[in-house]
């Protein structure tokens, strides 16, 4: 054992709020984000909540929130600080990065911060990629436990319960490790006003992406974005008997 602080790194993405109904932009290559409410990705809020609970139990000393994005993203990092993170790191970049480049960038941050645990959301609700945590774990050569619904630290390892298609899978992973969060891990706390004010004085480091030596080139090109065909409203029936008759008519029974 060393005396280095037991640190948890939580990765945060700024996304269109989950309540917003997104619209395709005029160029048909993205969605409208102007004037649209932006929030911390819901899974990342869960990741941060978990980190805070681990620290509050005395199993960690410090919680650092990290984002790879434009200067606007400071807003979401401040939200993280207001929730209770100790400090924040923004790796600043003008262009949006693909998951592999984000993972490479986070890997560089991990090298600097030497966390015992890195928590990410299982997926960002904009791209729905569900890649970054697994990629980071691969680059770092460390264990991954994705879709966590329970995390228990004990000494040099963690027992994680994962939500998988067949039920719940239990893994023991050596630390340091990467864990991605599912919805049922916890319910994030609400931020209170005094904390928002306090968060303004907490440290937020800005590191230009160029300083980390990451190749942030894009591999993929989005050539078109469109709305899926809409399912129209069907018929309305008044009774259970009519419903069964309607199903019969459609030949689904």
């Amino acid at each position, binding site marked *: 054992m060393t005396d280095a602080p037991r640190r948890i790194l939580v990765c945060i993405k700024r996304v269109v709020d989950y309540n917003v109904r997104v619209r395709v932009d005029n160029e048909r290559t993205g969605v409208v984000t102007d004037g649209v409410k932006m929030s911390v990705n819901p899974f990342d809020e869960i990741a941060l909540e978990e980190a805070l609970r681990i620290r509050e139990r005395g199993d960690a000393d410090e919680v650092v929130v990290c984002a790879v994005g434009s200067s606007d993203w400071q807003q979401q990092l401040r939200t993280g600080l207001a929730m209770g993170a100790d400090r924040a790191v923004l790796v600043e970049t003008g262009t949006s990065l693909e998951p592999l480049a984000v993972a490479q960038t986070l890997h560089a941050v991990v090298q600097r911060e030497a966390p015992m645990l890195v928590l990410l959301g299982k997926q960002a609700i904009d791209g*729905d990629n569900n890649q970054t945590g697994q990629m*980071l774990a691969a680059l770092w050569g460390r264990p991954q436990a994705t879709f966590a619904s329970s995390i228990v630290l004990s000494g040099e390892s963690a027992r994680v319960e994962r939500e998988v298609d067949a039920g719940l899978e239990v893994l023991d992973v*050596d630390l340091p490790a990467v864990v991605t969060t599912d919805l049922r891990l916890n319910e994030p706390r609400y931020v209170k006003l005094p904390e928002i004010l306090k968060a303004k004085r907490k440290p937020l480091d800005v590191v230009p992406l160029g300083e980390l030596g990451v190749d942030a080139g894009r591999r993929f090109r989005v050539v078109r*974005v469109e709305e899926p065909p809409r399912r129209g*409203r069907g018929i*309305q029936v008044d009774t259970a008997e009519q*419903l*069964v008759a309607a199903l019969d008519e459609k030949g689904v029974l």
Partner: protein
Amino acid sequence: MARVLIVAEHDGSSVLQSTAKCVACAAQMEPEAVDVVVFAGDPDSAARLGGQAAGIEGVTRVLAIADPANAHAVAAVLAPQIVDTAREYSHVLGPSTTFGKDLMPRVAALLGVGQISDIMAVEAPYRFRRPAYAGNVIETVECEPDGMLVGTVRAASYRPSPAASSPAPIEQRETSADLPRHTLFVELKAQQADRPDLQTASRVVAGGRAFGSAENFALVEQLAEKLGAAVGASRAAVDAGYASNDLQVGQTGKVIAPDLYVALGISGAIQHLTGIKDARTIVAVNRDPEAPIFEIADIGLVADVFEAVPALIAALEQRRR
């Protein structure tokens, strides 16, 4: 020309349908070869599971890799073995199930290549359609046709490739990769399996917050029983403990494409709807005529579930006679 490697998903005794769906997706890539790699804990299982994979139409060759470390699918253990095998391929595919979602990005990062998640259609070997924003938009994404590409295949978008008339050859391979020991599989707490499987069922009956308790949720199961359907649930119903987590349908649960989906007391949040968009017929029962679920339902019934569900069961029984 595409040379595709597919990572088979199995539960220890059977290769899952998700694998045959990956083969169906690969068939759209003008493939020169479609090989399937099967990982198993011992040579017997490798032969048996390999045999099943070899029986899928469109498979060129099966690579079976037996090693005690492969007894359970641990991403950190499987990924380096896939990387070892992957060099001669242009595309490496896995299913967009929790198995593939966990594993494939780890493979992609070790290979130093990007991943396309949730392929729903192949427009060209390096051009794909995929959903984003909880299925509210469909992106068409392309990349340079030189490097290697990793992808996951959205199961709800594909019908499984049928059985082959003659099986593909099977090659036993050994692992030369250095396998990590930092991750230990402890157990799988599986849910009771006496109902049809949610992901492959042709009919699904799902319940939402309206049921109010696990006891009341039994009504959903009763109707499912009558219809020979699998049971599904909204996130609210799972969070409240009425149904187990593996029954959740939606953006963060399962994306399904049954012939019939019956939504009982589910409001129809976008995160839920994204999981059922490909269902052929959607039926909704909700007491709120303004519930968004009615906007996409083919047949809607404004009613209280506690009255409508027993009445539906009775009407179905009536019909049988």
